[in-house]
């Protein structure tokens, strides 16, 4: 009983320790920086802002210049904003889990997954692939073993055993006249295993070369949805969005462009209003929900993989599974109700 008590105490201590480490790992929740100035200069600045607004404008401008803005380019065809610079990708992902690497499942890890470290024979991606192949092989063997148990009794009479005691695969095929898919003898299974292994080795070598060549030529970029990009540009002011001709887009330009591109060409002809005048434009609906939950501190990610509109994380996808799943249902008020009477 005493030992039981002690262990429960130590386990709660461990849990507390775990909570502490998790809290400290989330260091910067959003990609904005607060300038560190002394208390006196802060007082001086607020005094200036109240008494001499024009002078303080000069100070505020300087502060804004010190915040490095990341650069993104808007692609109307894919309805997304692309960030290509490595440091910018790191910053946007680490501070708020924005965007998705276009060659990865979520975190932009393409380069890390495919680089082969000097002391290890395989890259992480190859290790994963081999594990999947091994798992598939085990499943197949289980399947074959289960079918062979049922057929064994029927085939015992037909199998010829030669002098060595091994069953020759060719004779079995001849006598039964069947393809050796569901085979019962051990030697056949062994031969099959060896063949299968050779195939895997070939794949590995070829994949090695292909992967290395690809890794040199392909650069992964971070792809932001229009609502993420608009939040960073309008809400936080840390992203500068450029259009296809490399011109800087103002927040107003972005507002118009994102609303227009959110409506596909097929529905454009069926619409009564243009995308710029319609009140239930898909971009507006999505952005309003995105902005709301981001302001509350949630990490909002796309819910395409989960069959919904948005998925909410407390700290980010790399810490815990999502707490909530959201489906946007617009509430439309019919102003001209008399037409329905």
């Amino acid at each position, binding site marked *: 009983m005493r030992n039981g008590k002690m262990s429960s105490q130590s386990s709660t201590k461990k849990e507390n320790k775990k909570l502490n480490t998790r809290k400290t790992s989330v260091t910067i929740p959003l990609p904005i920086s607060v300038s560190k100035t002394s208390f006196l200069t802060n007082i001086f600045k607020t005094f200036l802002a109240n008494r001499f607004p024009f002078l303080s404008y000069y100070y505020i401008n300087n502060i804004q210049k010190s915040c490095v803005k990341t650069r993104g380019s808007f*692609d109307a065809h894919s309805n*997304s904003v692309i960030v290509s610079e490595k440091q910018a990708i790191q910053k946007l992902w680490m501070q708020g889990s924005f965007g998705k690497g*276009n060659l990865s499942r979520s975190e932009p890890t393409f380069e890390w997954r495919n680089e082969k470290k000097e002391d290890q024979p395989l890259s992480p991606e190859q290790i994963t692939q081999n594990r999947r192949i091994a798992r598939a092989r085990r499943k197949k063997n289980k399947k074959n073993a289960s079918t062979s148990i049922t057929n064994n009794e029927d085939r015992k009479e037909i199998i010829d055993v030669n002098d060595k005691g091994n069953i020759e695969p060719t004779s079995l095929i001849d006598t039964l006249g069947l393809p050796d898919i569901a085979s019962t003898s051990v030697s056949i299974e062994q031969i099959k295993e060896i063949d299968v292994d050779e*195939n895997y080795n070939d794949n590995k070598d070829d994949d090695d070369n*292909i*992967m290395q060549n*690809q890794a040199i030529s392909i650069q992964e970029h971070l*792809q932001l949805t229009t609502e993420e990009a608009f939040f960073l540009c309008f809400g936080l002011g840390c992203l500068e969005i450029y259009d296809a001709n490399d011109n800087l887009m103002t927040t107003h330009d972005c507002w118009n462009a994102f609303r227009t591109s959110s409506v596909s060409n097929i529905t454009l002809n069926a619409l009564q209003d243009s995308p710029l005048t319609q009140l239930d434009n898909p971009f507006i609906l999505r952005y309003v929900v995105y902005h709301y939950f981001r302001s509350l501190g949630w990490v909002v990610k796309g819910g*395409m993989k989960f069959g919904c509109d948005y998925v909410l994380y407390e700290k980010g996808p790399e810490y815990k599974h999502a707490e909530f799943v959201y489906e946007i249902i617009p509430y439309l008020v019919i102003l001209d109700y008399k037409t329905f009477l």
Partner: protein
Amino acid sequence: MKLDQISSYCDKYPQEASNLSQVYLDLTTAKSWAEVKVKDIEPLQRCILLGRTSKSDTKMIIIVPCASNEIWTIEKITQLFSQLRTVPSLLLDCDPNNIKSITLAIAFPDSTVVYYKVHDGINPPSDN
């Protein structure tokens, strides 16, 4: 660059260009499929991809890239199957009358691609 192979198809069907390129990149680099071929299907006004996961696979899988805001009704799916069957067998590497299932590759603006396997008619579940 890898995208040279599909650039001509992107110019031909500009609306489907982003979906095609996203799915093509995902299959060739992120999923590292052994073989991916692009086929132009004029009756559908889009391109499809024929692919093989690894070299030991015998059957080619038909991938149809599409956008996330496309609505796939049952009529549209049956039309897709019937038009794929009219394609000459030299273009596809398999017998077009024998197409039992295709995979819809739905591309989302943040570059997520979701794959849905669609069978023609009712099929019993596979023993996975």
